[in-house]
């Protein structure tokens, strides 16, 4: 039996000790350096564009002591214009839905990586469909206000949890967007101690083969984790995927090719428990892979999916060599 009390205490300590670092309301987060989330329209079930299931779920955690109304803002929610990915002509519709209440997070289907069964668990608090809309192109749309108490209280995080799902319902264009959990409806004002996470990340890589454009995601390694299995999809063999942690400096992991999955296991070291890993994605140098959209998820040895926090729990892991100097015999 895993020690959930430990991780609860740990996260609580992190929330209180490092409030500034955990303003993880921007999705993708600043430490992730990911330009956009992406969800495609489902027509034709074409996955080769970089979305395996035409749906993306994120959770927001709001510290239980935060009582004020809050907002969930979406950047460029429509499908069309400069930011999104056109396939033939703009014909795509998306629905964004915000859930709270019991089961919005704790329902087993909510923690999956596939939009199946009751993945829309919980109480629907707000929903809206979007298509091409020039008024919202490269602008923010705001859901809310929401009462924090309308979320699902999750003791392990000492937070109220809300869920937002972006489902493609028609068309085949790619919807590029971002979220922000905000105290204000008209600007992005973070809530101290809040965070966001997902179990499956579908995002756009930078359209730049300068290796300084490194994207990161930060799976959190829970206690009891012996190994992880990462699965990534449609990476088009675009560059290098390396894992950095407090214990390892750039361990190379395999990347998928066009429209296929690849997975690999990696043993977890004791010192990595209770911390985040840094999955780094370096785009290929040389020939540029444009508009590369990718999917990734991680599970532990029990098949449980691990969270990718927008603000990495414990901070961005930094590898620190441990030097040993010994006289030669």
């Amino acid at each position: 039996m895993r020690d959930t009390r430990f991780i609860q205490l740990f996260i609580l300590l992190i929330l209180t000790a490092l409030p500034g670092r955990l303003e993880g309301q921007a999705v993708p987060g600043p430490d992730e350096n990911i330009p956009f989330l992406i969800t495609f329209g489902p027509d034709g079930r074409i996955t080769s564009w970089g979305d395996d299931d035409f749906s993306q779920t994120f959770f927001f955690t709001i510290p239980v002591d935060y009582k004020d109304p809050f907002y969930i803002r979406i950047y460029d929610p429509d499908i069309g214009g400069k930011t999104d990915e056109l396939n033939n002509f703009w014909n795509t519709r998306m629905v964004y839905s915000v859930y709270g209440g019991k089961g919005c997070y704790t329902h087993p289907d909510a923690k999956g990586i596939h939009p199946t069964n009751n993945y829309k668990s919980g109480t629907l608090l707000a929903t809206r469909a979007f298509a091409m809309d020039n008024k919202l192109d490269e602008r923010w749309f705001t859901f809310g206000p929401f009462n924090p108490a309308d979320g699902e209280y999750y003791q392990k995080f000492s937070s109220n949890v809300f869920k937002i799902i972006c489902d493609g319902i028609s068309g085949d264009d790619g919807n590029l967007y971002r979220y922000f959990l905000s105290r204000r409806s008209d600007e992005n004002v973070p809530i101290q101690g809040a965070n966001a996470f997902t179990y499956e990340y579908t995002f756009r890589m930078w359209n730049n083969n300068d290796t300084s454009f490194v994207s990161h995601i930060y799976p959190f390694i829970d206690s009891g984790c012996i190994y992880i299995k990462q699965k990534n999809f449609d990476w088009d063999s675009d560059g290098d995927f390396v894992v950095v942690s407090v214990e390892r400096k750039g361990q190379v992991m395999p990347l998928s090719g066009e429209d296929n999955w690849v997975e690999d296991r990696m043993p977890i070291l004791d010192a990595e428990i209770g911390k985040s890993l840094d999955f780094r994605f370096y785009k290929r140098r040389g020939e540029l892979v444009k508009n590369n959209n990718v999917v990734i998820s991680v599970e532990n040895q029990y098949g449980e999916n691990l969270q990718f926090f927008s603000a990495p729990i414990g901070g961005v892991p930094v590898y620190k060599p441990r030097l040993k100097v010994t006289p030669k015999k």
Partner: protein
Amino acid sequence: MTLSVFSLRLNGQAKGSFEVQHVTSLSSGSDDFAPIVTDDGIIFCSNRKTNPFLTKKNTEGVRLYDLYFAPFNAEGELSKPSRLASNLGKDANIGPASISPDGKTLYFTKNLVPGKNLKKRDSNKLGIFTAKRSGSQWSDIQPFEYNDPTFNISYPFISADGMSLYFCSDMPGGSGSYDIYMCENIDGRWSKPVNLGSNVNSSGAEIHPFLHSSGRLYFASDRPGGMGGLDIMFSTLSFGTWSKPVRLDDPINSEDDDFAFYAVPGGFEGYFSSNRRKYNDDIFRFASTIIRWSVCDTLQGNNYCYEFVDEKALLLDTLDMKSRWEWNFGDGGRAAGIIAEHCYAGPGVYDVSLDIVNLVTGRVEKRQASYELEILDIEQPVITAPDTVAAGETIMLNASETYLPGMTIARYYWNFGDDTVSEGIEVSKTFQIPGRYNIQLIVTSERDQSGVVREVCVCRDIEVTGNGN
């Protein structure tokens, strides 16, 4: 002429590291010499006066030599000597002796023809005899089979295993005067005497052989080049050949006659005889003042070579890390790898740092870890000397690289492992005999404010080859 055999006289001088004391409890005012130590006392030779009725004299009224025994008392001190036995020989000189390892057989020197009726002094030669111990009595006196009325055989020494008998003789065929010979016990009989050869024997007299447990054959010789008179020296047997003798230094040898050397197995104490007090032979006890530590640290070489490891990376070093570890050793040296090795020129404080190069981006992450490496020399006295030297070759031994911080050194004391010593930060030494010598350097501090004197010892071996003179 019997007396002259026991009292050859010559001259010489030198220096050494022994304390010498006249053994007054054995001194009589007459000749007292050639002590041998038994379990319960000391047997020695003397021509002392006993009383008017018992004092042995020859036909010319000259006092004769006899063996005396001084037992140890309960405190280990010597008690008053008395004649060892009255039945070893009547009207004859009874002289230097040796006793078998089991203490039951006495080998002793005696005139071949006892009695007062001898007219010519030279005609009464010396021979070796044995006596068997029975309780406190000595009996069954038997002559050595090679005794001969035409020459002297004397100064017996029976080896510790009882299988070799060394003695001295002026028998024909020798190098001159007295030579040292040896017989081996083969099936209960003594083999024919073998002359020990020209290294041991000279044209002068070689007398009083004593084979120490170390393998050294000590004897006295009046050959030229010594300190004067009889000098005590030793030779060692190597591959069937006795080496050139090495003379003992002052104060064992003096400008007078020094002879009849006897040492306990460790070699640090024993007895010898000398007429340095003039007129008579006396017994002296010596004890080594040589400092030699029983436990002395072996000299260690300073190590300036180190291995540097990023232990974390080592755990995963079979994996492609897309990184390169670059070490800066703080002395200008650099190396790449999760494990690196580097040798410094010497002691010092070095700022070792590790850069990690991201092989994907080419970015160098500077000083991902650093380590202040302080290299110190080993705190020890240091012996600088060649590992190998030829016998007869003079070498210099230097202690100037001694590293003992906080210690004000008052004395550098050298023990060369051959019972010779020297003092000074740099000394010279000539080893005469091939072999492996364990050199000790003992460094002594000035007395500190608390009155404490520190001493530190290191040792190392020097191989002396037989290629020298």
